[in-house]
């Protein structure tokens, strides 16, 4: 180390242990190669489905004039929602002084980057003429919410990327001398990306300031990105979409799915990278409480979203709600609300369930339900337009996603997994320098007194 920075006692020893614990995982081992090989093969298979769609047109999906937005748009909303967690963990919790989020913040940013990046691609898969994508920039009209969406999703992606990358820089500088035995190319990349970092106190100061600015900046940005996504629906007059609480409803839902995604990732890294020392039971305990909190807020918005129209029962709202509560979509609707929201909240109120493994199971249920919830928001309201649907083929009346559509959707999920894998496996997954600075050393169970 440069030694120009006055570090607390025992810093260099801690640095040694922390860096060796974390860099141990940075390697091209067999598991990684097999996993990536599997992902890439699966991706190739799914992309073939997209090739068929490109050739034959969107008719290969289950979409028709009645339900013209389906799985792709639901998936897009889900992706945007989940990416919001970067802002929640790093900014809201981080800036409010919760020290325990330190080792989790980078995981949250990786999830934000991956989901935001792929969200952009998902929306292209829904376009009838993807070849005309440049028109959005050439002829874009500010009146259209799609344009707002494109702008904020792109900005959010880049800011999230910076929020991930900036704190990685000192780690790369620390790591580049400690990567013996790894392929030369990886060391070169580290050398290049560490941007001549010499651990000067000035550098750290600038880094901290830049982070502060970005963390503040990303809060309104994240709110904008998902509010605007909700407006894709709320600006139309359709019953089921025509709602004035869609903005906060979507945002609170986003926190639920994002937190669940982070918990799943935490569990995975804790076990397979053997990071029990850093991602402790206490971290799970705390983020479990966060999940309870955001879920309760989301439940509250759900109550508003369904109770108020349910009370008035305007003719078309009544049809829509009946479909959800007791009709064709009832099993899905109640399954999502109960298994993905109500029961998780009740379970997580007990300390016994705020342990890593139970939380993994609960989070998987929450995340799956979050995806299905987006489907319920997007698809059923289109099934009952204002005017009756007549004189069309039967396939047009009820939307059923096809295999091709499902494969293309899977492609997007695989892509997220690829990005998460690369960012977490080839770069330090936890902030080495921040953890080493911690006076309590590697025993970061009691980090709250930094």
């Amino acid at each position, binding site marked *: 180390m440069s030694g120009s920075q006055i570090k607390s006692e025992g810093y260099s020893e801690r640095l040694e242990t922390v860096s060796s614990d974390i860099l141990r995982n940075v390697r091209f081992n067999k598991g990684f190669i097999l996993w990536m090989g599997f992902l890439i093969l699966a991706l190739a298979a799914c992309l073939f489905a997209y090739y068929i769609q490109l050739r034959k047109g*969107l008719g290969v999906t289950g979409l028709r004039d009645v339900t013209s937005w389906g799985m792709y748009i639901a998936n897009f909303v889900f992706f945007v929602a989940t990416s919001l967690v970067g802002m929640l963990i790093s900014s809201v919790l981080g800036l409010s002084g919760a020290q325990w989020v330190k080792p989790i913040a980078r995981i949250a940013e990786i999830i934000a980057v991956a989901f935001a990046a792929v969200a952009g691609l998902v929306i292209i898969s829904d*376009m*009838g003429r993807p070849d005309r994508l440049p028109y959005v920039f050439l002829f874009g009209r500010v009146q259209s919410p*799609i344009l707002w969406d494109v702008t904020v999703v792109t900005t959010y992606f880049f800011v999230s990327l910076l929020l991930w990358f900036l704190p990685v820089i000192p780690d790369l500088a620390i790591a580049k001398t400690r990567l013996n035995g790894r392929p030369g190319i990886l060391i070169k990349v580290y050398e290049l990306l560490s941007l001549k970092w010499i651990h000067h106190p000035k550098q750290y100061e600038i880094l901290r300031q830049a982070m502060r600015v970005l963390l503040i900046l990303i809060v309104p940005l994240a709110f904008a990105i998902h509010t605007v996504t909700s407006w894709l629906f709320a600006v139309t007059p359709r019953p089921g979409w025509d709602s004035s609480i869609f903005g906060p409803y979507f945002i609170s839902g986003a926190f639920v799915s994002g937190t669940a995604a982070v918990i799943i990732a935490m569990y995975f890294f804790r076990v397979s990278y053997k990071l029990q020392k850093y991602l402790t039971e206490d971290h799970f305990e705390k983020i479990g409480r966060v999940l309870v909190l955001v879920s309760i807020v989301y439940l509250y918005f759900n109550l508003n979203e369904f109770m108020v129209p349910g009370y008035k029962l305007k003719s078309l709202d009544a049809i829509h709600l009946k479909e959800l509560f007791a009709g064709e979509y009832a099993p899905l609707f109640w399954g999502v609300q109960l298994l993905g929201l109500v029961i998780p909240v009740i379970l997580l109120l007990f300390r016994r369930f705020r342990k890593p493994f139970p939380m993994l199971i609960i989070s998987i249920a929450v995340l799956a339900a979050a995806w299905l919830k987006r489907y319920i928001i997007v698809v059923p309201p289109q099934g009952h337009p204002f005017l009756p649907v007549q004189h069309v083929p039967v396939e047009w009346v009820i939307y059923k996603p096809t295999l091709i559509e499902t494969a293309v959707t899977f492609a997007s999920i695989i892509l997220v997994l690829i990005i998460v894998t690369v960012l977490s496996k080839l770069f330090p997954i936890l902030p080495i320098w921040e953890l080493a600075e911690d006076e309590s050393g590697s025993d970061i169970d009691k980090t709250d007194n930094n």
Partner: protein
Amino acid sequence: MSKKDKEKSSEDPKIDEILESSRRDFLKKVGIVGAASVAGAAAIYSGYRYEHAKSDGESVKVLTEDNRLVLIPKDQMKDYKPDPKRLLLRGRDGIKGKKWVMIIDLSKCRNARKCVNACQGAHHLRPYEYHINTLQMQESVNTPAYHMPKPCQHCDNPPCVSVCPVDATFKRQDGIVLIDNERCIGCRFCMAACPYSARMFHWQEPLAAEADKGKEYDIELNVPQKKGTISKCLFSADRLREGALPYCVSACPNGVFYFGDENENAVTNGTTKETVNLKELLEKNGAYRLMAELGTKPRVYYLPPKNRIFDFEKGEEQEYKELT
């Protein structure tokens, strides 16, 4: 629009049809419609000068691009192929000084679906792809059922236009909402926004993709139709350009449609060719607009299904199969 005295309908619909077609033939031979047809479907520009006219030659009346009626010598006439860019600009601009309106008289609709077929023929659509569809409606169990032809309402406050990200769908100064199929990116936001389900999407290769290959794209006809883009009723902008009534309006055998210019306060019935006072027609019949409460301000008015002299027939159930 051409005018013709009202004729009493005979009881036999066949005779009616024959009468009707001869009447249309006659109409085609005279007046503006005739002149425009002689000149060919392509628009004629006013570039022809009188000084070139030979005094001995015959003259013809020609409708210019800006809707003036001029005389030009017949031997000076050439088929003119307008520059596609100009066509596009003209298509976005609309016909100056006009405000098109359609009135649909529900008391006369017997679900002949001739409007549907004529429109699908003109725009090269499949039997289940609609610019106009007839719907069986019934407000409540106590009110009678009726048939309702439903084209695009050409809203004056069109939600479809507000949401389009690339200005592919737009409102013209003559009131028509059109689509530029060479601009549309196929996001279908406009479909989600349209409360009248007036829009259709080309989920696959359009029906006449092969036959229309190489044809110049006509923004006022949406032909050739294009895969992966939106289509919908255009108020037959191409016909209006020629001074003719829309395809559906002239195809109806039952006198359901009136079409005309709000600025002139006159609309013409597509079957009887009778031209009437627009305001009077709306007032006397208690006209209304579909879902006016949404604030979309449709340019299509409906006359309620009252005093019908025929029974409601459900119309035979036809099974629609998806064609590829």
